[in-house]
């Protein structure tokens, strides 16, 4: 074989491989866009932050991957485990990734969760977890829009002593503001981290 072909064949093969790769990537992107177009927009809400006592809307985090957990600050057993999963996941992210991930904790106990209690509770698990509260009506509306069910169970019929039974999911929202998953509370910090990283990459 002439020297010309010895050089030409590898070059041609490389070019074909690159072209195929580009085509395949375009195909994947196209598929991804197609599925994403079919996804519902995450229900928009505006609530108060425990941190700055300012109002905050979900749409402000467009461009970030968002994880939302609904719970309450006097929750002794389940919410600490679940927020612990969120905190542990955040600690595993690089500082750059942390910038692109937002973690929200929305109280289902607006009567008892003062900004101080909510801030103390959410910060305990990770300083980046933002505690959100609102009036009982506002909270009820946000919970309803996400399909979150919650109800008080009173201890010894005392109106001031109660637990809140509640749905426990990690809602994931992509940078385009679409609701992409409601993960069960059995999700590990690693799995949660992988899902969020896939959304921001």
């Amino acid at each position, binding site marked *: 074989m002439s020297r010309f072909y010895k050089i030409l064949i590898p070059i041609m093969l490389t070019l074909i491989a690159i072209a195929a790769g580009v085509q395949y990537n375009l195909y994947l992107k196209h598929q991804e866009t197609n599925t994403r177009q079919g996804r519902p927009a995450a229900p928009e809400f505006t609530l108060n932050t425990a941190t700055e006592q300012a109002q905050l809307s979900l749409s402000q985090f467009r461009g970030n991957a968002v994880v939302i957990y609904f719970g309450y600050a006097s929750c002794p*057993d389940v919410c600490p485990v679940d927020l612990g*999963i969120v905190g542990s996941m955040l600690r595993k992210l690089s500082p750059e990734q942390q910038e692109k991930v937002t973690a929200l904790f929305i109280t289902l106990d607006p009567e008892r969760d003062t900004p*101080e209690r909510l801030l*103390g509770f959410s910060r305990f698990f990770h300083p980046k977890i933002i505690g959100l509260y609102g009036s009982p009506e506002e909270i009820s509306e946000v919970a309803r829009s996400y399909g979150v069910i919650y109800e008080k169970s009173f201890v010894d019929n005392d109106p001031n002593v109660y637990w809140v*039974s509640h749905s426990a999911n990690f809602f994931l929202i992509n940078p385009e503001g679409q609701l992409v998953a409601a993960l069960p509370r059995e999700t590990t910090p690693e799995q949660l981290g992988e899902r969020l990283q896939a959304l921001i990459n």
Partner: protein
Amino acid sequence: MKTISTLVFFLAFFSANLVASDSISIDDSWVRAAPPTSSNTAAYMKISNHTDKAITLKSANTDAAKMTQLHLSSMVDGLMTMEEQKQGIEIPANSTFELKPASYHIMIMGLKQPLPQEGTLTFELKFSNGHTTTLNAPIKAATSPAHEHDMKEKMPMEMNKKQ
């Protein structure tokens, strides 16, 4: 030599008895560290029943809180719910029962003071066979609940292998 081994035997025997009575022993107890703003938390442990009959944990009291209750967290119709176990928590005969997060636990309500991030909380546990134990459970932050749980599951198996 014989005297020493006898002494060691008795020391081992009695020190084991200090922690465990004949019927019940408690291992790996811990209290969930809570933020200073929280007045509730929970305690967990492994309770072993060394008898041929089921024994029920009837109560677990601490002076550090206004109230304690035996609770079960479970998923009911898609809701995470806690329910007081008024009848107590039964430890089946010759077995170890684990009180663990999002399952059976000791509910601590109305802490009189913010819980320190380390140290211990003292409980008095009462059982149906009349046995009473004082327990000093360390306060711990569960940084990675899933991992911690896995480790706890594996440990007894490894210990069994050595025996």
